[in-house]
């Protein structure tokens, strides 16, 4: 037997500090909220103490953003804004290893993903939007589209740095200023991004980052001087925000949950479909809103595909997120782990057949072995509710019409995957998918040039691409 020796990335690279402060008006300051302790979900040890914002801190941050908007940022030519944004992008690349290790420590995701996906994609979002800053007149929104003002942004814990980039980059490119609240379990990389922003000499107040729990987010989106709210997170919170904002003049975009169908036809490239299924649901421990959590497989190849899938999932290496050979890291929090356990128990209770990888799991930390449920029907909770964990539900279909009906039979509609070698069928299916993103013969591919967003309870508004600019322009 050939066992891979541990190959951990050094945690010293993260340059972890004992305490982190919030970033307001260009300075790192203590918040007046109750400080929070952020932990490493792979070991349950405390990583750092982070100061949080109180309601008055939220007000201070919004005022700083307003001042920066009125006096500096909205008046600055796009070509000048672009220079700052390019600078941020380059600094993210410069400090890529530090950000990757810190992200894996705080979030639990494997270093290979933070290193090869999160950090490079975050940098590419800044690069991409920097390019738009002086070309907004050519984006199709009129000759001189105006910014909205102060954007209040609330982001989730699954891609802490990348979501910050998705939110901040277009806002700045379009001439808005930002108050951003990172998730309470993963505030660290956003605060290093604040450090980068400070070192890039961005005018004070253009970007403010205020850690805290849901109450800080509520105070931010409810603040009367915020012109634009962007939220990525759960559908439940999204509904509350939409209710809270009803009747105000605030512009809103929501990117919420999903229960995506990954549809495999009998003429699919099977081995690569297996890879796509694995990537679709086990990437980032399944903590992905667009995860391919429902596999719809044509009945005639279901047994063969499942056999290949089990064999492939058995090779996934679950463990230390800092080990370069880890494929599946730690679940982000005990709360999330409990939710995954509760939903998988419901799957068994409702009669689905559970298969779980026999991979060894670490003794401490929050881990969940990759799990595949077969014999799932649309009525089961595991087919309807977002699990947000490494759990796949397998359903079968016989005809393309049935695949469409099942795929669309969800209140969500964020993404879908179609696997077939027949090009005409890809187009036929894609037209019928009620999903914001449709991948064909691949899954979970992200690029700043491609708009991302959902239908129905997966939210509205797009992020990325030319279309994504609309969310930050007064059009």
């Amino acid at each position, binding site marked *: 037997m050939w*066992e891979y020796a541990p*190959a951990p990335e050094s945690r010293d690279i993260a340059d972890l500090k004992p305490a982190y402060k919030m970033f307001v008006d260009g300075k790192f300051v203590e918040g007046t909220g109750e400080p929070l302790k952020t932990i490493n979900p792979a070991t349950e040890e405390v990583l750092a103490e982070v100061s949080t914002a109180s309601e008055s801190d939220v007000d201070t941050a919004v005022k700083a953003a307003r001042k920066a908007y009125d006096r500096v940022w909205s008046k600055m030519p796009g070509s000048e804004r672009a220079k700052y944004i390019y600078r941020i992008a380059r600094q993210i690349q410069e400090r890529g290893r530090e950000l990757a290790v810190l992200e894996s420590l705080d979030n639990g995701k494997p270093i290979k993903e933070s290193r090869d996906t999160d950090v490079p994609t975050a940098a590419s979002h800044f690069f991409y939007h920097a390019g738009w800053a002086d070309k907004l007149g050519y984006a199709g929104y009129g000759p001189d589209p105006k910014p909205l003002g102060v954007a209040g942004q609330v982001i989730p814990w699954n891609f802490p740095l990348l979501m910050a980039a998705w939110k901040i980059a277009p806002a700045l490119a379009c001439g808005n200023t930002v108050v951003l609240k990172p998730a309470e379990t993963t505030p660290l990389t956003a605060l290093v991004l604040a450090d980068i922003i400070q070192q890039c000499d961005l005018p004070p107040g253009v970007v403010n980052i205020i850690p805290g729990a849901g109450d800080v987010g509520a105070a931010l989106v409810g603040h009367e001087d915020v012109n634009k709210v962007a939220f990525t997170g759960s559908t439940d919170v999204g509904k509350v925000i939409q209710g809270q904002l009803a009747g105000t003049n605030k512009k809103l975009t929501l990117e919420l949950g999903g229960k995506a169908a990954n549809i495999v036809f009998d003429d699919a*490239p099977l081995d*690569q479909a297996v890879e796509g299924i694995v990537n679709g649901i086990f990437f980032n421990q399944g903590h992905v809103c667009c995860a391919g959590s429902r596999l719809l497989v044509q009945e005639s190849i279901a047994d063969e595909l499942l056999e290949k899938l089990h064999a492939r999932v058995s090779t996934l290496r679950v463990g230390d997120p800092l080990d370069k050979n880890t494929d599946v890291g730690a679940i982000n929090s005990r709360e999330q782990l409990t939710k995954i356990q509760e939903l998988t128990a419901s799957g068994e209770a409702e009669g689905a057949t559970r298969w779980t990888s026999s991979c060894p799991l670490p003794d401490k930390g929050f881990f969940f072995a990759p799990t595949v449920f077969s014999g799932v029907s649309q009525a089961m909770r595991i087919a309807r509710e977002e699990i947000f964990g490494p759990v796949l539900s397998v359903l079968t279909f016989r005809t393309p019409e049935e695949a469409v009906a099942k795929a669309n039979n969800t209140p969500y509609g964020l993404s879908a995957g179609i696997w077939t070698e027949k090009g005409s069928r890809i187009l036929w299916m894609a037209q019928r998918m009620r999903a914001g993103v449709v991948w064909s013969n691949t899954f979970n591919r992200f690029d700043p040039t491609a708009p991302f967003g959902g239908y129905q309870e997966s939210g509205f508004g797009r992020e990325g691409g030319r279309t994504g600019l609309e969310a930050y322009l007064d059009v």
Partner: protein
Amino acid sequence: MAAPTTLPSALADATRDESSLRRFLHGLPGVDQVGVEQRAAGLGTRSIKKAAKLHAIDLAISMVDLTTLEGADTHGKVRSLAAKARRPDPERPDVPQVAAVCVYPDMVKTAADDLVGTGINVASVATAFPSGRSTMDIKLADTRFAVEQGASEVDMVIDRGAFLSGRYGQVFEEIVEIKQACGDAHLKVILETGELVTYDNVRRASWLALLAGGDFIKTSTGKVQPAATLPVTHVMLQAVKDWKNQTGELRGVKPAGGIRTTKDAIKYLVAVHEVAGPEWLDPNLFRFGASTLLNDLLMQRRTQLDGHYSGPDYVTVD
């Protein structure tokens, strides 16, 4: 057409006649280029360190088919290659022997004489290597000559012209006949994937060679670019794994050409480990066709054990 071994009925049916064979090969699931290349690149980021690396280096050395296939080959060169095969690093007797020495047919006797009793195989290319452009009589005579001279392994080339024009039956028959001419010698079937171009073709040619009784499927002659690549090897490893699942038989894979560094070799071993499975981590089931790779493995082995890099002057050039 006749299947060389007792096969499950679905596979035996595939070899019944030309049209069955075509239907079978064209019925195999396609290979998505983007997907297989993404997977190969992803697995290529595995970080193999310390004891795992040393183990991989020794395993890779034991899997090398030490090769010289030059028009300029001499008996003297083959003899020194045989010496290198026996004791790859003369100062370190614990270094494993390589799996085989691979030469042209007229050099087989020289190699075989020098390797008697060592357990190292003598592999000979045959069948009008590298182009395969000759008559069947000559290809058979070429094979028989190599075996008579003492080759225990034969590396044949398929007729790529026939394959690409869809004459699968002809390619199948040739492999079956060469396999018979090999007798007890193991048959490696060179697909020359650089001329097949698409991954779909690689998968079809792999299955064709397995159905016809090839003990190994081999990527390349080393005379055509591109030679071995990781994604092509992924497709072939998947084929032998699927073959095992359907027949219970273990067949081997040999990437050849262009694998020069330890780092590359380890990427291939990771692919063997995770695509085919741990049981293929065996010189009987996986080989490297290479000439310069061995010295890099030896240098890296010294680096691992000595804690510092010594350089190419400390390993023998031949």
